[in-house]
């Protein structure tokens, strides 16, 4: 045993090299986009109900920011979670993401509650696509309440 260990120790490499890949965390969840879009929706509501110009300015600035985050989270799902083979299950995937990110752009500049609602509905469609391709089982950490 001692001899084997000595020989193995002598033979084993001293230096480690890396093939070096990105390490994704593997967590992809439309809920991230949905929560930011809900912020936008509520902000539009609050904006309409308040006449204070300072409050309204703040509301618009925050809505711009949140809508940008919606676009970011949708993009990450689109590029990193969805794979070519998912297109079989969700043939309209690309169009769906195009519509959803366009709706997010619309919400950035809009104070119409209907635009906020449309964005939420499209994110729910993305959520359905994510579930149809096993996203819920594959990417959510087990034990999280759904």
């Amino acid at each position, binding site marked *: 045993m001692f001899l084997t260990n000595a020989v193995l120790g002598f*033979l084993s*490499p001293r*230096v480690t*090299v*890396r*093939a*070096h890949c*990105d*390490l994704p965390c593997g967590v992809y969840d439309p809920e991230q986009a949905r929560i930011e879009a809900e912020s936008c929706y509520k902000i539009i509501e609050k904006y309409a109900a308040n006449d204070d110009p300072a409050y309204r300015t703040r509301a618009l600035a925050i809505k711009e920011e949140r809508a940008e985050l919606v676009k970011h989270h949708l993009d990450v799902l689109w590029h990193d979670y969805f794979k070519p083979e998912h297109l079989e299950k969700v043939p309209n995937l690309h169009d769906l993401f195009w519509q959803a990110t366009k709706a997010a752009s619309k919400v950035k500049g809009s104070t119409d509650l209907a635009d906020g609602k449309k964005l939420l509905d499209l994110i729910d469609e993305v959520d359905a696509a994510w579930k149809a391709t096993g996203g819920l089982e594959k990417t959510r950490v087990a034990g999280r309440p759904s």
Partner: protein
Amino acid sequence: MAPTILPGDWLIVNPLATGWPAPGAVVVFREPLGETLAIKRVAAGAGEQVPFAGGYLTLAPGEAWLGSDADEKAAASVGSGPPIDSQRYGPVDVDGLVARVLFRYAPLRRIGRIGRRPRD
């Protein structure tokens, strides 16, 4: 570098290599960004053109274009993300060359030469 090289492989290398071997050979080198000691396959050498960022890039003397054997799918199968290679950090100068990979001596069932792979 799956399937050619897998985590835990023991390799014999030639650290006396002074120039990039011909395309197809596997090399150990220091990455231009971050100095990570990395292993990749030479995809193209000085004077050759490589497709990059929608156009073409001609490699200068002393430069090599290094690529991964694993595509995104193969890397994902061993739990990694997209490979980081010359597509990310561009051509690598011969100053960064550390060694040429010759042989795998462990694990036992995978012993063998790390040969040059013909280009497709």
